[in-house]
């Protein structure tokens, strides 16, 4: 375990600043114009992430629309997180890691049984976090869609073979997202221990919301 680095969140008035323990869930309303900083405190910790329009949750993050619009499967600075109606929800304004995944989706007890075997059934998983945390906002099973995996590395080989491989993140790296409309942001601090997405050792992340100073 590496030493935690203090969250170098975006400048401005701090609206909330929370450390999300390993394997836990987090959510918040992020108002239009506010910045959400996700800090990978210990390195190589996947953060499964979904965004919903706070005023109409049927409008939610769409991995396909986001990929379509930017012509690339990896997310980084400049990536606009688009909704299923092709409207902007959030924009990546800073990324000190380099690239992030939005193809691999969330781990679940169910898919773990396929990927690793039924012995994993009792393990915690991201879909459990999304369901539990989402229900606090009136969201349910029908509202879960393909998500973003901050700090997760999923290359696609020439023949289409893809997989979650060793991460490229490090302690203290951060992603800063600007809310383009009022959104509900949902995070599952990934509990997966069967692949390298969390370095086989899930750890804490920092979630900081700031209100930029008036310019």
């Amino acid at each position, binding site marked *: 375990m590496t030493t935690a680095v203090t969250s170098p969140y975006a400048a401005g008035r701090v609206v909330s600043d929370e450390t999300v323990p390993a394997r836990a869930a987090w959510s918040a309303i992020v108002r239009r114009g506010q910045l959400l900083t996700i800090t990978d405190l210990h390195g190589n910790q996947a953060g499964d992430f979904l965004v919903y329009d706070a005023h109409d949750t049927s409008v939610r993050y769409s991995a396909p629309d986001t990929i379509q619009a930017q012509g690339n499967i990896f997310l980084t600075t400049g990536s606009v997180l688009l909704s*299923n109606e092709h409207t902007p929800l959030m924009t990546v304004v800073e990324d000190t890691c380099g690239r992030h995944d939005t193809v691999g989706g969330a781990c679940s007890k169910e898919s773990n049984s*396929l990927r690793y075997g039924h012995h994993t059934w009792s393990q915690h998983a991201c879909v459990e976090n999304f369901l539990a945390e989402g229900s606090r906002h009136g969201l349910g099973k029908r509202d879960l*869609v393909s998500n973003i995996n901050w700090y997760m590395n999923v290359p696609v080989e020439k023949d289409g073979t893809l997989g979650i491989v060793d991460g490229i993140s490090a302690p203290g790296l951060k992603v800063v997202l600007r809310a383009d409309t009022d959104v509900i942001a949902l995070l599952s601090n990934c509990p997966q221990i069967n692949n390298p997405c969390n370095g086989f050792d899930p750890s804490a992340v920092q979630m900081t919301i700031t209100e930029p100073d008036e310019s």
Partner: protein
Amino acid sequence: MATASVTASAYGARDHARAQEGTTVDAMPVLPASSWPTPPEGTAAEDIVWAETVAGGNYTHKVLARGTEVRLTDLSGDACAHVLLFSADRPWERLNAADTVKVLWNAYLGAGHLLLSDQGRVLASITEDTSGRHDALTGTSTLARNVERYGDGTPQSASPAGRELFKLAALKNGLAPRDLPPSVSFFQGVRIAEDGTTEFTGSAGAGKAVTLRAEQDVTVLLANVPHPLDPSPAYTCGCLEVLAYRARPTAAGDALWDATPEGRRAFLNTAEYLTARGIA
């Protein structure tokens, strides 16, 4: 004095409507499906359960029994079949495009690929594919993007968006827009470069076909609209032939059942669910 309109009375309107029977157009369902003139080789006409040609810019939907095979054929070489699948009587279990590529370790759909639900089960398997040009990553078109690209994207326009048509198909099955997850599409290919760039590879040509086998009772929603990455400035989409017929679900001992360890466990999960419900 003007001649009286033939539809001026209820009798006349009825005669006028009934005179339309027997009209044929390029895109229409054929009923009974068993009257389809060219059954697939090895399939008896009476086993055909769904025969329809879907126009470009249109959609269709059907509830299919487990063990039914659906053959989709791109008649013109510029069709694009956008597909969503739901467990027929439990629609909150539905196609999960992310699990479909992740669990099976491949981003590209083709023969032998399983279309997985979010519950670790198989909704349908791809049993045959003569196209090889498909996409599980970039979804379908939206109203906003079609307005930007073609000037309109509403269902009644000349350039309907895939998501708008999916909404209609969903609503007719008691579902709502929030029930629509990312879809997959057939007949217009997308490849991913090493740096993550999406590359549109387009069609493999007219007459290419893909066959899906329902591995549990499924609701199929299908929109035939241009691929969202199709660079053509014109909204171009040809007719799609849909032919479904009774076959049998994949069973233990079949090559497909054991093709991969992940797929085998997906079939096992599906069988366990069906057995517990007393279905199989």
